[in-house]
């Protein structure tokens, strides 16, 4: 086990962590802003990958990267307006049953349209090369994944901190009622927020499509990973979610090398330890 392998695993870990951050950030966003825990995020991620598969048959990968998430966001908007609005301010039980129901529907629809055997998308030309890395060939696509997720993490942060929309989102998170009293259409804003979170999972799904076996069954695994990350990161904090995603991604990809019989349990173990000893999130300051 030499250094080059470790670095390689580290990069792969970072790339998977970054992608999971983009998925998990969507869940964290709706949880913070709308008090809604969206268990359907994993299914939307896989749906994004399937849309990439479908769209790359007609157009290029780049068009798919643009269109796929937008289609998903529109779907998410309809879902918010017609279904989720009815269960705000209700127990999490209802949210879980509703969003899991949507997950079941999406999984069945995806299996119906694209079959159960799984599909694959080829890596877009130009990114299908290798770079030398400490005497090994490292696939460029992983670096592309890190770059594109990094860009979206940055965009998310900038949007949150610097724009009017981000300001409104932050205002809703801290005091929803007050924003309503100021004459701002909170429910419209919630729809936008939800569409945005679904759009994020679409980006992640399309970007990951070329390097994963696209199978509807994976919805649940993605959901697990994303849930683990937001729990480790402290549920509602985007910053915490970001670092948690990196930690979980890197630990599980290094775990493949050092603990091959245990690595699939590593993220869950991290989550349980965090919940037991620091339930407010690994990177949050301890409050009261």
């Amino acid at each position, binding site marked *: 086990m030499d250094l080059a392998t470790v670095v390689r695993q580290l990069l792969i870990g970072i790339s998977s962590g970054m992608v999971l951050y983009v998925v998990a950030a969507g869940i964290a966003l709706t949880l913070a802003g709308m008090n809604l825990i969206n268990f359907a995020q994993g299914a939307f991620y896989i749906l994004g990958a399937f849309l990439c598969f479908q769209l790359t048959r007609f157009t290029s990968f780049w068009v798919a990267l643009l269109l796929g998430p937008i289609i998903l966001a529109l779907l998410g908007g309809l879902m918010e307006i017609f279904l989720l609005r009815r269960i705000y301010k209700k127990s*999490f039980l209802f949210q*879980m*049953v509703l969003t899991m*129901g*949507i997950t079941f529907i999406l999984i069945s629809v995806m299996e119906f349209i694209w079959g159960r055997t799984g599909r694959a998308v080829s890596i877009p030309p130009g990114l299908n090369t290798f770079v030398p890395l400490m005497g090994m060939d490292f696939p460029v696509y992983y670096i592309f994944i890190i770059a594109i997720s990094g860009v979206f993490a940055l965009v998310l942060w900038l949007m949150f901190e610097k724009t009017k929309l981000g300001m409104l989102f932050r205002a809703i998170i801290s005091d929803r009622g007050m924003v309503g009293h100021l004459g701002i259409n909170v429910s419209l804003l919630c729809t936008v927020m939800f569409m945005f979170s679904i759009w994020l999972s679409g980006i992640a799904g399309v970007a990951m499509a070329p390097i994963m076996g696209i199978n509807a069954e994976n919805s649940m695994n993605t959901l*697990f990973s994303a*849930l683990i990350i937001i729990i480790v990161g402290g*549920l509602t904090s985007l910053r915490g979610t970001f670092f948690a995603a990196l930690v979980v991604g890197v630990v599980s990809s290094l775990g493949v090398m050092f603990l091959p019989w245990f690595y699939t349990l590593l993220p*869950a173990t991290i989550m349980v330890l965090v919940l037991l000893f620091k339930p407010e999130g690994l990177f949050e300051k301890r409050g009261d």
Partner: protein
Amino acid sequence: MWKALVKKRFFIFALIAVVVLSIVGPILPRYYTQLLTLTLITALFATSLNIEIGYAGMMPLGQATFYGLGAYSFGLLVIKAHLPIFPAVICGLLISMIISVIIGYLCIRRNLFIFGLLHLAFNIVFITLVSKWVNLTGGSSGFTATLRPAFLSSYVSFYFFVLVMVVVAYAIIKILVESPFGKIAQGMRENEERLNFLGVNTKRFQLVLFVASGFFAALAGVLLAMNNNGIYPAYFALTVSVQGLMMVIIGGMYFFIGPTLGALLVTIFSTEVSNFTSYWQGWLGVVMVIWVTRFKEGILFRRQSKASKKIPAIEMNK
């Protein structure tokens, strides 16, 4: 202690139900008796969930943990340790109970929202553990083995065995929730803080409820393992947890018999739909979405306005 059971209306209703079930079981064709057996088992599972949801306002998002735990600890004792069936049932239930005490102790230390997530987290841990620890659990294919004693091998005798077990379990649950203990649990649902001010250690009550709920879920799991003559990782699936919640919501969580009705509807629906389409999970999803957005409070809701006190949505940003 027995007052809860001999309350006139409940007693008559229960008696009629048991008599009808004992008559109907043997005369129905084999397929329907087996379906009824499965319904009874899932009804026990849903009722075990409702101990926490309906009476204490807790959110057990990952109850399949204990369903699977009961099935696996019983099944593995038979398959791996070669114990006879009934000692294995008792040891299996004991093991599940010990594990549920540990999990419960870890889950209830923070507020109810963290409780729900931890509950779900342990479910995810067990799903991964069971599918990866191939040497012990048989991995994703599980184990198929004869898990019924010889005198229960026919479907009618097994039906009666399940009926007796479920009736006994229901009687114990009913006594539990109608006792002063259960009243405190309901107080916990309505206002935990006030109970704390009254000097009640609510954490201890939550732990006892958690263990009781886990125990009956494990019992349902044991019966399921016997019913299917095998243990499979699907028992732990998140789908099972969600179906349990679904049954509670459909039937109505403020009624003792609500989850049972929910279990009846969901089990029959899933089984019948899966007979003619392999996409039954999607159709179940459709029912879940429509039900949750349209009916909300369960089929028994309109009967009693007292139940309009909802579980308050737990605020994140306190």
